[in-house]
């Protein structure tokens, strides 16, 4: 009956338990290390940029004098950029997600669309820059306008919002759908009145994630040739403009060391901006969380 030497096994257990404890410690240290890097990064940026942060910095245009340089044009430009990206991605992204989750038949075409979306999510942003330059700036003659940059960014972040909307829609319990169908509601009605309302938190979170990505991306703007010497606020969608990351890139490249501080201050503004966006996402998630 006894193939196993129970004594020996019990003897070994202690060393296995110790090894486990040790490795757990190693993993914990690795985790803390990464958190430390994040803390260092934030600390470094804030301590470097803090000296330059002020209301004037927010309210001034950039300047050739580091002391006077402000971020107004870029900040407004980025906000306007968001105002293009948000509706475009929201409409196309959510529509795509609904199609894929609720309507798409299991055909090769559907499969292609799905694969295509996850591929698109992995295409380097700089390539979207080349696309935008060819199609929007030159092809449709939109110039280096808010609209051209906004559309480019929209295509770039579209996969983000599609995927999170898909997840949100998929997360709506199927029994809610069934309840609606069970009462004779047709499909679109069910989607509109049951599925979408229930998926709002997920969709909103995805939308905000997409926006944060769009606000922070630099490479496509560089390729589009977005100008940096801009002393006016964009007046409309076809107006030229500059954006936060572009402005930071410009400052970071300048030879005068004082501009490094300005760049850091710009980065702090950008990060606060993103933080606000993300807190909004967290708030939405929190507010709707206790629903199911």
């Amino acid at each position, binding site marked *: 009956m006894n193939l196993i030497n129970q004594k020996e096994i019990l003897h070994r257990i202690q060393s296995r338990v110790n090894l486990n404890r040790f490795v757990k410690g190693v993993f914990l240290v690795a985790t803390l290390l990464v958190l430390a890097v994040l803390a260092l990064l934030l600390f470094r940026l804030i301590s470097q940029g803090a000296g330059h942060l002020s209301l004037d910095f927010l309210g001034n245009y950039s300047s050739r004098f580091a002391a006077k340089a402000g971020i107004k044009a870029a900040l407004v430009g980025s906000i306007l950029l968001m105002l293009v990206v948000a509706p475009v991605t929201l409409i196309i992204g959510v529509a795509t997600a609904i199609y894929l989750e609720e309507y798409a038949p299991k055909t090769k075409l559907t499969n292609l669309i799905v694969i295509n979306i996850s591929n698109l999510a992995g295409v380097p942003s700089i390539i979207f820059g080349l696309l935008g330059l060819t199609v929007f700036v030159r092809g449709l003659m939109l110039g280096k306008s808010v609209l051209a940059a906004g559309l480019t960014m929209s295509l770039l972040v579209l996969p983000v919002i599609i995927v999170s909307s898909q997840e949100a829609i998929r997360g709506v319990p199927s029994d809610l759908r069934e309840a609606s169908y069970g009462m004779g509601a047709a499909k679109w009605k069910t989607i509109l009145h049951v599925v979408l309302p229930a998926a709002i938190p997920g969709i909103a979170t995805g939308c905000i994630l997409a926006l944060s990505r769009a606000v922070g991306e630099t490479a496509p703007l560089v390729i589009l040739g977005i100008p940096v010497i801009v002393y006016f606020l964009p007046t409309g969608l076809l107006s030229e403009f500059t954006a936060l990351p572009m402005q930071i890139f410009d400052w970071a490249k300048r*030879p005068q060391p004082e501009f490094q501080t300005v760049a850091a201050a710009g980065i702090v503004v950008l990060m606060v901006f993103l933080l606000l966006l993300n807190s909004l996402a967290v708030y939405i998630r929190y507010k709707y969380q206790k629903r199911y």
Partner: protein
Amino acid sequence: GQGDGKSKSSEAEQTAKADEVAESNISGDGSSTVAPILEGIVEEYSASHPKTQVSVGVSGTGGGFEKFINGETDFSNASRPVKDEEAAKLKEAGIDYTEMKIAYDGISIVVNKDNDWVEDLTVDQLKEIWTENGKNKKWSDINPKWPKEKISFYSPGTDSGTYDYFVNDILEGKDLVKNATLSEDDNVLVKGVESDKNGLGYFGFAYYLANKDQLKVVKIGGIEPTHETIKSGTYTPLSRPLFVYVKNKSVKENASMYNFMKYTIENAGEMAEAVGYVKTPDEDYKKDLESLEGLK
């Protein structure tokens, strides 16, 4: 911007308002060497003319001309005269333009602070050092007394007027060393030379001035680049003129464009000095103004 406005006389402000016709857009692009001058001018101009929206990109002289040819811009900054091919393309595109000389720049040759061997180079030495010959160059190749260490080269990018000028006028059209770090971004060059004991680079005088304490400038034929030597023409052959190319049609059709260009020419000299370049003689500006009036 508003604060500055108040310090000016109310009369000036009124004239400023008076010649601001309506909202209008002006778009420029081009040389990174010229950019600091234009940045200053646009900054000042925008403060008194909030309705005129001037944007300036920094794509290098060549990149600027590309957009100028494409009709995307109203003026183009250049740190060299327009090339023949570019002129031909402009003609093909039906774009008439006027050249305005707005300042002088001295190309400065710089080495690392810890470099205690190079003080002075002749133009021929410069050419020998910077011309590609298929080998990794050492300092000792130039002067046997110098260290047997490889030189790290830093040069403005191929689309910059500075590069063109250097290759055409100093290297006489020969290839620049291939292992040079090329960058449109002058800060990259400053940083590179600053951190590399064997670094050797060249770029606009303004960038040298801005980083004077981190770099060591090399005399050329015994002459150090300074305001005086550049202006007086003794710092040769490395001093060169800077230009703004203006699209005639824009000046004719857009009163704001005329205003802006006039302002530019009137203030270019002062602004150039402020950011570290050198004024051209006053006659040059007068000539520029005259040709501008002719376009109206």
